[in-house]
């Protein structure tokens, strides 16, 4: 399988949980947003997995190309993915 790379930018709480603002990850060609989420859950452990699966908090958004992407959305090589909660209050 060919590989692609995506840049993942962690906003807010997710930058706290991962200890990173941004990283580049290699994925199989054709990988989806859902598969990226599973990879992040494995990489960063229980607390991040809980957040991703938790129906008690706001839904975690994976924003690609300016819009929240559904889990089946395929990722392209070089795309930027923002991982964030919807927020408000300024």
């Amino acid at each position, binding site marked *: 399988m060919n590989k692609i790379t995506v840049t993942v930018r962690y906003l*807010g709480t997710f930058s706290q949980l991962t200890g990173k603002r941004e990283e580049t990850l290699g994925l199989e060609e054709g990988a989806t947003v859902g598969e990226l989420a599973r990879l992040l859950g494995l990489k960063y452990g229980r607390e991040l997995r809980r957040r991703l699966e938790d129906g008690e908090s706001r839904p975690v958004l994976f924003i690609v190309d300016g819009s929240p992407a559904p889990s089946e959305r395929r990722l392209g090589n070089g795309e930027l993915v*923002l991982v964030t909660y919807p927020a408000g*209050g300024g």
Partner: protein
Amino acid sequence: MSFKYGAFAGSLLFVDLGKGTAKRVPLERHWCELYLGGRGRDARVLFEKQDPSTGPLDPASLVLISTGPLTGLLGPTTGRLNVAGRSPLTGIYGNSNAGTNFGPELKFAGYDGIVLTGRSPRPVRLSIQDDDVRLKDASELWGEGVFETTARILEEEGPEARVAAIGPAAENGVLFGSVIFDFWDAAARTGLGTVLASKNLKAVSVQGTGAIRVADPKAYYEAAREGWLAVLEDPGFRTGEHSALGTSICVNWGNAQGWLPTRNFRESWFEGADRISGEEFRDVFSTREAPLPAGRACFSCPNRCKRYGRIDEGKYAGTRGNIEFEGVAAFGSKCGVDDLGAVFHAYMLANDYGMDCITCGNTIALFMECIERGLLEDEGLGLRFGCADAMVEMVHRIANREGRLGELGSQGSERAAAAIGKGAEALLNTIKGLETIACDPRAAKAFGFGFAVASRGSDHLRAHPVFEMLRKPPEVGRELFGSPEAVELRKYGGKVRLVAWHENLAAVTDSAGSCRFMHASYYAQYPIPELMNKYAKRKRAVVHSIKYHKWIEAATGIPMSYEGLMEFGDRIINLERALNLRWGLRREQDTLPRRFLTERIPKGPAKGELFEPRILEEMLVEYYKIRGWDPRTGYPYEERLASLGMEDVAAALKERGLLSPGGAPEQAQPFRDPLAHRPEPGPGENASRG
């Protein structure tokens, strides 16, 4: 002192600075029964006691610093207070709400609020220690910054005192002077610090040792406990986002959604957003060390949305303080500046000078665009979008009214644009004279509509309709606001009802003394948790919600239902409309700036968006119908005011030809309790809710 209702201290402190007198005046019962306290009572006191012809800076004008019945009580977010008066910037109702420890202390001292009038012959400060009220000489403090002033008063009064102070900008006549509480907490919008400066009042300190009694302690405990549980269960609170980064969480989030104002609202996506973000502030400037932890909270607040930091090295070394999203966007993306050190420094300068950072930053951004278009000389500053040094220098010049740019800037962007001429008005983002906050109304339709109708001018906090940003289930939008589009940021459906509902709640909580974030950022208030649970995949057996009606009733003894709560909000907004009409506001000022109606967003996630003028007009007509205002003139209908118990307000408007006779042809009743048990509809009746 006994007062019929619980939770109130029972009196206001009236201070005449011209005469040097202070007297305790008992609260009027009808103030509480119709307007609660805080923002609502302040509007009422202004309506009753300030002659409409009195100018904002006339000695006879009033400034009120007021708490609500919930201020200082056990319960979530009870540290809010309201500062009110006629705005010198806009000429209409000016007010600003701050989260503080000052408000509770004022209640403990035995006062629901302070009413200031007159002009002292020399600079003074007001010192309150329970019944001991004194005006003290402040000649040596005049000209000092807010931080130095506050520190020196604490030295004199003791570390337990709470302090409100103004800065040199207000003293110099900058029209958007702020009032800053306890170093960091700003009541800045609409320039009421400038009114205090015109009275030669530099500061107010307060210390109190009294208690506050509630009407029904057992019911109160249950209502407050329910409120705490609702906050802890709230899906937004559970994310921990505010506690992690404060409100600057909105820099990257707003950019991701395409509503972060950039380069004087020419754009709504900033390529440098991450460099001025809450994440960047945490990683570079935030500190866990003394004197304050990184995340600060107001009185009785679990949210800790205030972020404290400091700069230890470089040209801005020594800068320290508390940041919020609005100031960061005002000096950052709106000015095209991505140097967070410069933004933080400019923000703290504005606080120390005592100026509203939003008006200040927006005015600088306007000048940058005017200079780039050749409409204005830059006096050798190099003032262009992205130029951090010139942006910082402009803060000094505006505060000191230095040079033509400083003089123009000190009057706010609307007066400045009029003086610049040559079409500069087309670049404005003001509504009713007040600069627009950090959300592009083209990209967020409820926010945009809320700006157009907000009673203090372009402002997000009259409604704060964050609901449209949070990807709530569309069914909740349909049940509460009549359209599933209410949950979609770029759609118009349901947005009028959404704004009106949020406005009503905000008017109530501003008047009761609780924080906007519990019901318009988080959504912990009845009936949202119940409706969210109704449509959730995993349902809770027990749902908690903040029931403001029960909470306020238990605290005060004023009977209240959910619908009654909505009516309180409606009444307060109608009173603010009446005040504004008397001060010259007219229907045509309920609109958006030309840029938002004619220029499409050029790039970013909201590319191509506009606020459609035709739809805005339709929304206004629907809004007036909900409020009971004549869609032709924007004047309230006589019958509507009477139904709200505001006959005397109607009479005062009638005298001036500012009232529409009769009632609205079809009175909208959009805010019934959606979960109340009602009789089954009869045959042929529509089963859907009204």
